[in-house]
């Protein structure tokens, strides 16, 4: 039985990993992010919710320095994003894009080992520490048993695990995951999100994950933020967010919230 996410109340909120202030971004004249501001709590799993086109993926890309913002500021560990050297940043923050390359011709262990790049760079030696970290990452994520298989021969769930293993090998304290479960079936979704939460709980990692499914988010996240039309419309604990009126305003569709008949967790569905 998974422990419920109510433990994460904002009572003992530590210093934020990311502090986002008044973030603005427009692409081709269309406003994508319109004054977004929130704190991403360290050591917790934060779910980023919102309907299609609300700017959640873009927000994650800005946090991952994949894309510069037009205005506003983002602090990571108290330092503005632009102030980080790219390899130093990569040692602290791992990013998993929504579209993953086929990684043709790479075996699982080769792909995981690539996660060590921020530590050894283009010319440095692949040290014993690097090998250890890569091995540990394979073990933690449970991809050890197909270490010698080719990545493009794996199933969707296995491939997602391997890419997460690469982020773990990167040894980053903060993981930014863009819809890591969008193309997976329910059992595998739960498996992957279980792994993600375990990574946060056991090693104190900070995780921000873009999710579509409000119930998955409620089940696995400690903290939720919601965007709509590029604006932040909600920021709080699961209990704060999973309320019919608030979800209605996020998704622009009438929602019903009832307790789960067995676990008691609140579940939401469109009316």
């Amino acid at each position, binding site marked *: 039985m998974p422990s419920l996410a109510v433990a994460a109340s904002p009572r003992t909120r530590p210093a934020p990993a990311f502090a986002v202030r008044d973030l603005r971004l427009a692409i081709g004249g269309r406003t994508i992010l319109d004054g977004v501001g929130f704190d991403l709590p360290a050591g917790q799993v934060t779910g980023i919710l919102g309907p299609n086109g609300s700017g959640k993926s873009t927000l994650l890309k800005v946090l991952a320095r994949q894309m510069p913002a037009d205005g506003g500021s983002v602090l990571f560990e108290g330092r503005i994003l632009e102030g980080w050297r790219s390899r130093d940043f990569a040692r602290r923050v791992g990013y998993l*894009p929504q579209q993953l*390359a*086929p*990684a*043709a011709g790479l075996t699982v262990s080769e792909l995981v080992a*690539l996660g060590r*790049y*921020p530590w*050894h760079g*283009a010319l440095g030696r692949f040290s014993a520490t690097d090998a250890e970290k890569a091995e540990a990452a394979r073990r933690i994520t449970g991809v050890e048993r197909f270490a010698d298989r080719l990545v493009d021969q794996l199933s969707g769930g296995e491939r997602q695990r391997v890419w997460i293993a690469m982020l773990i090998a990167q040894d980053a304290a903060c993981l930014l995951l863009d819809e890591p479960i969008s193309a997976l079936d329910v059992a595998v979704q739960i498996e992957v999100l279980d792994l993600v939460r375990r990574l946060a709980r056991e090693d104190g990692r900070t995780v921000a994950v873009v999710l579509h499914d409000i119930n998955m988010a409620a089940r696995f996240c400690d903290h939720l933020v919601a965007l709509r039309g590029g604006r932040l419309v909600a920021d709080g604990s699961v209990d704060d967010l999973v309320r019919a009126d608030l979800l209605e305003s996020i998704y622009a569709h009438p929602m019903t919230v009832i307790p789960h008949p067995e676990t008691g967790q609140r579940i939401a569905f469109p009316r």
Partner: protein
Amino acid sequence: MSALRQPSGPGALALGLLAATLAAGVLVLLPAVRELAGAPPPAAAFDPGRMVLLYSTLPRLVMALLCGAMLGLAGALLQAALGNPLASPTTIGTDAGARLALALAGLFAPALYGWGRDLVALGGAGAATGLVFLLSHRQGFAAVSLVLAGLVVSLYAGALAGLLTLVEDRYLAGLLIWGAGSLSQQSWDPAIGLATRAALLLPLVFLLVRPLQLVELGEDAARGLGVPAARLRLFAIALAVALAAFVSAAVGVIGFVGLVAPTIARAAGAARVKHRLVWSAVLGGLILLLTDLLVTLLAGPFADFLPTGAVTAVLGSPILLWLLPRVSRREAPPLKPADPERARRRPGRGALAFALLALAAFAAALLLGHGPGGGFGVATGAALDAVLPFRWPRLVGSAGAGALLGLAGLLLQRLTANPMASPEVVGVSAGATFAMVLSVFLIGVAGAASVTAAALLGSLAALLLVLAVARRSGFAPERVLLAGLAVNALLDAVVVVLSATGDPRAIQLLGWLAGFTANVSPGSAVLVAVGAGLLVPLALLLQRWLALLPLGFPPAAALGVPVPAARATLLAMSGLAVALATPVIGPLSFVGLMAPNIVRRLGIQAAGAAILASAACGALVLLVADIAANALAYPLQLPTGLVASLVGAPFLLWLLQSRKAA
């Protein structure tokens, strides 16, 4: 989302083109007409001005309109049938196949005329198109794969045609002018003949309009609606090939009209199949007519010798370059992942084996061969001393060039994540050749150092051009390849125009393009070897980038790789390698395509081992080709580059074809 503009778009565009065409037409025809009108009624039966107007100028205009319309229609048919915005007779090998078949017919059956020529063109076009489909069907005719396969087949057919013209150089100038699509006419007969053929095909096209609209929904959906999609597509493609082949048989190859017309029609808002077919034909006719009128106006008396087909390529490829970033991303589907390959456990051993084989080939080539007396055997002692000065520059040059091309091919294939990428395809070779041609024709330099410098400048310029076009998409692999395709076509057309002038240097140029290594000077051999000796270790140093970049921009950047700088560095290295190798081996050896693919097929995947193995394999291929080029027709020397491509390309096709099903 360009398809959602007002439906008046293509009409307005056509009106504008029509106005421009009319203006140019008046300018061309006015002097002749005025002269005729002002002159008294012809007393004698012979009136040259009147005859030129009636039997040369007017048929030429009609021919231009007709050919353009047929090509535009063929392009639109192909695009609809394949669901591929980049399909056209030029891009899928149809033109090149017809050109090669007709060149063969011109040399070996010059009496062939009328429908016989059409059949020959049809056979060549059909064979080349079929080959392209064979190569790309595993990837579902994905836009870029199809175009790449088409380009490889086109380049190969071009290499064969090049060899023909080299052997039969009497026909050189005529063949080149014809091959580049000359519209000049001496009577109405060809126009009437072509119009007859078009009239035969048109009813069949009309039959296809409605079913093709359904095929656009996807093969499964069409089948659900009762349309035999696969057969229908095949039929539409056959029709398009016939249209293009008839045009080729009548006037030669006119590139790019079949690509540009449908692209413009679509961009102007012709969304449905019916509209696209009609407007592509209309716009194609007008575009070719306008181009031809401008050629006539600007080239004056030389218009008959300036092939309009080459001009359309010169004009059309920049249009394609300009259009590429604007083609909606959704229209060009991304590359499908390559079929899974077996990865080798100890890739280093494979690389070592290749290096040893290359060394062995080098030693064998140095010792084995026709001695001073003409006998074939192992040279030792004094005999070796006698042949060594002749053999070593050739062999060192071949080995070095092969290693450089193998390296360049590997870098480009890894960077673009596409196994069909190669120096030839990306336009870098064309750039090097172009600069070499320019330097010979315009400046007259011929020394090894200056030619190499020109090749270096040319290949880097081509590389920069390709990169500039691809920059907007963040150097997305498919954009780099398409930009390279356009640059290739552009430079190729310019080289054809220059060669078509009939300058005796053109023959020297062809020999050079074919890649004779016999004339490699010791200086350039050393230069190439040093280049290989520096660039291969440098690539080994940067192998981690090579391993990370194929993961795509976001993951590589998230790991702290300076992605744009890394891409630029590796691209520049491949450009430099091609620039060094091209003066020695010519642009047509296909080693840059072959070597990395052989290595990959053998399961050598790890970046470092692949670098070494590709370079060694490239050297090996060219050394073997060099031995063959010298021994096969002794005392005649065959061009090593061409031998490598003639032997290697079928091998490569077989390799790519024999993939196990996924």
